[in-house]
């Protein structure tokens, strides 16, 4: 393919916008895996679930997909708390997170995906909203609103969570549970309750992430798997549990994927996230921005 600066500039820009969205997709895992040490590989499936809820509300009621995801948020939060409760009782308490705990989440991933296939089929689904379609043009640069709106929503979500974690008592307790459960217990907080809330929040983010996913691209159930490599690559690369690291890593991955797609073809992009992941694990397992 011919190299041109317009093409290159547009690829970088859409990569940045895509990266912002990737950060929103990853934030739930940054909480569950990065802070709580729970390897929730089913997270992408919950994101796709969020996409389909937004799709249903949009196609049946004509509701804005992002608004729909905010309405569904409490349900996702409760779902997350419920899942953590089962996980804690069945695996964490028995010290069986490694084998059966992982298999449990894999089972959830699988059940969610197949249930979506049975309900909606394997066709791609998409949503309608005013910001899907038009672009802002600045010179040779195209700014599609379809990417810009999700980008802004993502950064808003991350900013809100960052403030919540650093400014509120509950948020600080969540950060503390990642460091030292005993200290938390001495402070009079129940670490299990804190973790349940944190996991609930982690799953709640999937609702919003799912809605902006279906704004960006059409969705079918199995694309959840494409996101696993991506999400964990960003999470590890950003240094587990660090939001600023995560955002930078997500932007970097978005740009590299966008360039790959522009210059080598979109069929290669799924491999980029995995390449990033392996490279990080091999070279700097603490993450590029980790200690």
């Amino acid at each position, binding site marked *: 393919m011919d190299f041109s600066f317009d093409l290159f500039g547009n690829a970088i820009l859409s990569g940045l916008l895509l990266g912002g969205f990737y950060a929103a997709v990853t934030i739930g895992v940054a909480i569950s895996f990065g802070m709580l040490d729970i390897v929730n590989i089913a997270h992408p499936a919950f994101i796709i679930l969020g996409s389909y809820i937004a799709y249903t509300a949009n196609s049946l009621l004509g509701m804005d997909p992002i608004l729909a995801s905010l309405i569904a948020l409490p349900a996702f939060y409760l779902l997350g708390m419920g899942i953590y409760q089962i996980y804690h009782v069945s695996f964490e308490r028995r010290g069986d997170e490694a084998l059966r705990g992982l298999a*449990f989440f894999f089972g959830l991933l699988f059940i969610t995906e197949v249930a979506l296939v*049975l309900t909606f089929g394997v066709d791609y689904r998409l949503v309608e909203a005013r910001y899907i379609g038009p672009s802002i043009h600045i010179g040779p640069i195209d700014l599609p609103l379809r990417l810009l709106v999700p980008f802004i929503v993502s950064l808003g979500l991350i900013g809100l969570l960052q403030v919540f974690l650093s400014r509120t008592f509950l948020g600080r307790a969540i950060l503390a549970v990642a460091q030292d459960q005993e200290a938390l217990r001495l402070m009079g907080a129940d670490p299990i309750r804190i973790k349940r809330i944190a996991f609930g929040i982690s799953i709640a983010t999937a609702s919003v992430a799912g809605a902006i996913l279906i704004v960006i691209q059409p969705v079918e159930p199995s694309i959840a798997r494409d996101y696993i490599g991506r999400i964990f690559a960003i999470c590890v690369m950003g240094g587990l549990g660090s939001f600023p690291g995560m955002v930078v890593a997500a932007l970097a991955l978005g740009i590299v994927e966008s360039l790959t797609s522009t210059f080598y073809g979109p*069929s290669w992009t799924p491999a980029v996230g*995995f390449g990033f992941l392996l490279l990080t694990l091999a070279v700097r397992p603490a993450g590029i921005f980790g200690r």
Partner: protein
Amino acid sequence: MRALPFLLVSILVAAATFGAATLVGNSYVFFAGYVVLQYIVLATAWNILGGYTGYVNFGTAAFLALGAYSSVVIHKTMPMPIPVLIVIGGLVSGIVGLGMGYLTLRLRGSFFSIATLALSVVVQTLIINWDFVGGSRGAYIVRPRTTEYFAMNYIEYLFLVMLVLSVIAVFTARCIERSRLGYGFAAIRDDEAAAEASGVPTLKLKLLATTLSGAFMGMAGAPLPYYVTYLDPASGFSLAYAVNAIAMPLIGGTASWLGPVIGAVLLGTLQQVATVTISSALNLLIVGVILVAFVIIAPNGLIGLVRGKGRGMKR
């Protein structure tokens, strides 16, 4: 039972299986039986790493597909007999298993699992972009009606090959279990730092397990193109392989060689029967639900249930 008598009994069971299948005389029995046998190999291979050392491999489909696509490449360049293909498929997947292990096993345990999940995606991406093996359109393999040597019906021949392979896989797993290596694996599964402190070279043993496990998965995949005669990435990398390879040992019981065999026979047969009656998606939903139910309610699998509540780990 010592190793040799065990091998003899396994061979007898295998011979009886083949005899019974021949007596029925319906080629569907061989078609369905092949799949169940393939799952015995896959589940046993998964369990060598997952059950014995405690490291979860989500990439069964990738290892299987590597074996299958190695055969496609060889079929297109210089066709060779299936036993040779099995050896090559085993080598390819074994080396990939070693590489994956080397990159990720020095880190936290979960990184290995995450990397195997991503491995499926990347290998699939490579295959989709590789036109020589058919890319996303897939590859056709023309299978002879009969074999050259014994003038055997080809599907019966494939069944027999998979039968032998499953005997080898199960025998290997059982030998490991009763050996110094098996104790080393168990120590790693229970507590890696304590294993190191007791002199167990944990990294070396883990690499051995990933290599062996990957190799058996590749071997199981090598004859696949000849079985399906049309192989495309969607079927070669089907998530069904990954979920079954995990569900079968966990449902049967991960502590011994028997668990994966029981799980594969039960779940494999169930799915073969159910695919005829209900849709394959619903079929897989059932497997997923059974998996989740078992890890929560019966952590030691069916073997654990039979041996008394929750005490199934004891040898």
